[in-house]
């Protein structure tokens, strides 16, 4: 048996030698030492894992922070407390029963994750420096209005601006007081219809997780929300035909140093991102910062919509770090969000609207 053991050792050694003879991937670019620690076996920067974007900083700078891009440590601590308190209020029971805010909350706090914290910046928008979406071109406002009209939207729901600060919930018309009609499924938001969630992603109330899996020549970003899966080729191929318009567009990636740059075009005109429809051009940048952080940036441009491009930046944090630590934690999984398969919500919205019409004698059939 001793002979056998020695033979096995030799065999193992031979395998090791052969293994060493295979040229190891050489980092083609000068890279930070952190990035060197995170490499796939085929030499790409490693972005893999489950990441969360539950940052409670708003997209645009609130009026109270006008002219102030960053918070001091002390201000951030106070703001964090305040944001947490606001989030926790989702579960409060002091709303008057039957009011829009009571009924229209959709879910109680059980369905929302542990409140995310704000970052030190006062807006997710980093450019323009004022922290606001740039001015809309007149044609863009007109286009948005026409689109919103097909859905019977009123109030701020008929504009690309969203609800302004200080506008009370339930005061904007429509079947829900939020400027939305429910004459047919097409009136409702794409999330309610289980077709699509906002893309590019911004932090939301729940399902703020992403799974990144890589293979040679590909990066895949799977969204927990609406189980979108973006398969991003890295081989330099051109975008698909402009005739193919998709809800999440068509993405192509490449590495700039250790940063994954993803270029997305071919968006559909059925939906919009902040007022931009099929003219949207999205460029995202994913950079591994350390064991628990990927920095996420995106720039959107659409000359038919905004006066200038604008950019957003926020951190994605590993699920392990959010759950309290990396070591000794069970490997996290991303679970299935089956939205359409049990979409009683949309049935309820439409059936409810029909019931109201019958009660009011306005039913059209």
């Amino acid at each position: 048996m001793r002979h056998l053991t020695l033979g096995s050792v030799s065999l193992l050694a031979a395998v090791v030698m052969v293994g060493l003879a295979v040229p190891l991937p050489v980092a083609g670019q000068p890279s930070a030492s952190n990035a060197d620690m995170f490499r796939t076996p085929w030499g790409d920067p490693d972005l893999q894992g489950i990441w969360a974007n539950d940052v409670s900083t708003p997209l645009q700078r609130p009026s109270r922070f006008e002219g102030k891009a960053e918070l001091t440590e002390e201000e951030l601590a106070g703001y964090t407390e305040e944001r947490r308190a606001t989030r926790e209020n989702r579960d409060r029971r002091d709303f008057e029963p039957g009011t829009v805010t009571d009924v229209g909350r959709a879910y109680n706090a059980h369905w929302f994750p542990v409140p995310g914290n704000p970052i030190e910046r006062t807006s997710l928008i980093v450019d323009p420096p004022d922290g606001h979406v740039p001015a809309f071109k007149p044609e863009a406002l007109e286009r948005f209005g026409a689109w919103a009209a097909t859905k019977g939207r009123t109030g701020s729901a008929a504009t690309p601006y969203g609800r302004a600060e200080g506008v009370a919930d339930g005061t904007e018309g429509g079947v829900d007081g939020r400027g939305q009609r429910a004459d047919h499924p097409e009136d409702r938001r794409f999330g309610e219809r289980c077709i699509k969630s906002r893309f590019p992603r911004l932090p939301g109330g729940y399902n703020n997780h992403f799974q990144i899996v890589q293979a040679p020549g590909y990066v895949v970003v799977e969204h927990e929300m609406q189980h979108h899966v973006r398969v991003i080729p890295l081989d330099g191929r051109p975008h698909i035909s402009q005739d193919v318009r998709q809800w999440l567009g068509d993405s192509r990636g490449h590495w700039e140093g250790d940063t994954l740059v993803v270029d997305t075009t071919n968006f559909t005109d059925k939906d919009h991102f902040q007022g931009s429809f099929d003219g949207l051009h999205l460029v995202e940048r994913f950079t591994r910062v350390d064991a628990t952080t990927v920095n996420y940036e995106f720039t959107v441009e659409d000359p038919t919509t905004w006066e200038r491009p604008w950019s957003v930046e926020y951190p994605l944090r590993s699920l392990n770090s959010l759950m309290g630590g990396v070591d000794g934690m069970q490997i996290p999984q991303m679970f299935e969000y089956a939205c359409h398969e049990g979409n009683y919500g949309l049935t309820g919205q439409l059936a409810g609207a029909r019931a109201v019409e019958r009660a009011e004698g306005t039913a059209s059939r």
Partner: protein
Amino acid sequence: MRNRFKDPIFMVVIAVLVSVVWLAVKPTAQGAAFQAARLQGTSNPDLNGVWQTMNTANWNLEAHAASAGLSTEAGPVGAVPAAPILALGAIGSIPGGIGVVEGGEIPYQPAALAQRQENRENVLTRDPEVKCFMPGVPRATYLPHPFQIVQSTNKILIVYEFASASRTVHLDEVGPPPVDSWMGHSVGRWEGDTLVVEVTDQVEGTWFDRSGNFHSDELTVTERYTPISPDHLQYEATIEDPNVFTRAWTISMPLYRHKEPNAQLTEFKCVEFVEELVYGHLRKEQLVSHWEGDLGELGGRLILDVTRTLPGQ
């Protein structure tokens, strides 16, 4: 020299060497020794690619002759297409197939066989594919849509074009899922060059095909993906469900690599396409209610009228 053959250590060495040689040249189950390319930087075979089946398993796992369609009614001689598919003509008819079930027949328990027959008579209203529900495993594999295997080291993501469904095959150790899901819980391991995936925790809502073949929430599926050429994987799925079948049974079929340049999945978010079917009765104004088509000299004019009622009416 002859004495050495009586030396137990020597014999063990010989036996091990013979085994090693035998394992190295042992033909695969498909009868041809094929050495798949390795995933770069690893010792595992590389299964990455856009794949698709080329069979009619999604119409019916068992062998079947071509037939008129998913909705038929009795004619004077045989079945004729019924109203829901009449206008589709040959497009709505079902192509035949030699079957993918090993042994030919799915071993149903008697009551389950009756259920399959009832399902078969109500495919249009019961098949979850019609409503764009996530397809579950193994059906996702042989839907008439491509899927992409994205193989990393600890995880393999299988991305299906149909309904944007996907699943993660965990090669690392993860805990059990808290609830059942449409695409189930997949745990994988390598057996030589074969990726073996145990799929559990699937909801009972999915079917195996458009012929009413079904399962309960006690379903377990063991899949085997084996490279048999640079452009083919042999796919096997062994299906067990003590509530529905009398024994385990296996389906088997090749997967073909999409070879066209720049092959990629395109979106097939069919939820949008089934809204009229699922929610049309809840519109304020009924939309799809009447259709007329002029089929020309050979077909005359076809007129279809649609009436819908609310549940309970």
